[in-house]
């Protein structure tokens, strides 16, 4: 039930279409009329797609699921901004009241070598899963855990870890970064687990392995522009990257393995 509800918009869309990973992509123009300002950006695309289907054309493919800003599926770049112009917002929670009638909107996929396009606006972000698999966890088997209150964790430490753990793995940080770096994503996980006593035993191993995997996946490096944090729908602090840098240095110094690699 929107504040106004009755207002509608007419828009000019320019959308990236690419039939498969190998195909050359191109922009296509669509005129869209009568979009309610209460609709979300994805609901606006639903309207376009419904029309395309009725015309017998291939609708615009994009990833989406929960449409509540938490699953991290939606992944488009709107007028150069990952997830659009509003800070702290995913595309599914971006509402059309942020636009004006007559606006031209360019919609592109998240672009990075490590995020190849699958079709149109849908990209493959499995590189993030690989990074997590290489160390973004606490090695504890089910059934081994001590009582949850056995190790007190100060309230502010838990809250700080939570702020880092709020990352939804959408990849907007990579998309926004001039260098397509995943340092904010890695930094968020390294902070989340490193801050908690439960994550401490694997602290060094985790950061070295995750960084190695990040580099191997073809992400760039950080030049501290802070664009990642501005684009992050969960507003993960840029501080996580600085923390990642110091954790990395610390782990390098502490690493006792003479070959330099970590197990």
């Amino acid at each position: 039930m929107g504040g106004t509800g009755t207002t509608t918009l007419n828009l000019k869309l320019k959308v990236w279409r690419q039939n498969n990973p190998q195909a050359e992509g191109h922009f296509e123009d669509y005129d869209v009329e009568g979009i309610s300002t209460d609709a979300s950006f994805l609901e606006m695309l639903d309207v376009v797609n419904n029309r395309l289907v009725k015309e017998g054309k291939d609708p615009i493919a994009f990833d989406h699921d929960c449409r509540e800003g938490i699953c991290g599926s939606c992944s488009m770049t709107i007028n150069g901004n990952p997830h659009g112009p509003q800070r702290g917002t995913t595309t599914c929670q971006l509402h059309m009241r942020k636009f004006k009638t007559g606006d031209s909107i360019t919609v592109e996929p998240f672009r990075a070598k490590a995020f190849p396009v699958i079709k149109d606006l849908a990209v493959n972000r499995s590189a993030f899963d690989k990074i997590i698999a290489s160390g973004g966890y606490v090695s504890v088997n089910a059934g081994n855990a001590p009582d949850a209150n056995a190790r007190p964790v100060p309230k502010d430490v838990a809250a700080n870890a939570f702020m880092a753990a709020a990352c939804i793995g959408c990849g907007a940080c990579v998309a926004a970064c001039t260098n397509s770096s995943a340092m904010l994503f890695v930094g968020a996980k390294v902070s989340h687990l490193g801050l908690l006593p439960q994550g401490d035993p694997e602290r060094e191993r985790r950061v070295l392995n995750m960084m190695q995997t990040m580099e191997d996946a073809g992400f760039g490096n950080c030049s501290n522009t802070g664009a990642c944090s501005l684009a992050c729908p969960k507003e993960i602090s840029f501080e996580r990257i600085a923390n990642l840098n110091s954790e990395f240095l610390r782990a390098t110094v502490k690493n006792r393995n003479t070959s330099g690699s970590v197990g």
Partner: protein
Amino acid sequence: MKYLMSTIGRKQLMAVTGLLWSGFVLSHMAGNFLMFVGAEAYNKYSYFLVSNPLIYLAEAALVLTILVHAVSGIRLAIQNRNARPQKYSMTPSGDKAPRFQSRWMAFHGSLILVFLVYHLITFKFGTYYSVTYDGVEMRDIHRLLIEVFQSPAYVVGYIFCVIAVGFHLSHGFYSSFATLGLYHPRYSAMLNKFGYFYGFIVAGGFISQPLYVFFVAGK
């Protein structure tokens, strides 16, 4: 070593070398202010520097660090370019736009490198005039300075490059601390402002010198 091959390792090297050079650039600028005092003070300061046997060590360190800084920077920039083969048609704007200068570090960095080489050719390896004060013969670098800054084109080019240095420092200074892992929400905001201030001072200091020569001392 694995650390030096990693991107964070390279960046931390850049941070350390960058901070060293930030210090050097500031002291260089401050020393050059002696030109406002006069030719003799300026030349004597220059002579003091070059006649000190430690100068070779210092010069070697500067060359080495700038090479490390530049080579790492170039390698990282190549890696970064490769990380996005297909460019965007638009860049982040509005509330999500990062600071202008932070996006162009590799660009001003390259400009500064070219400028640096040119700068050394002009001054360090430029025409050797000599002058004698108190019976000691030394290089009259002040005379060369006055000559060089008579050319409007050179002054403009010099100022442009020095502004690039200022931009580079204003982001690089703060950025170095972040890369070394030193970050605190409160202090880093201050450090950020200080980075701007630092860049402004260095650029401003260096700009004042050719302008002074061109409009005042050279007449």
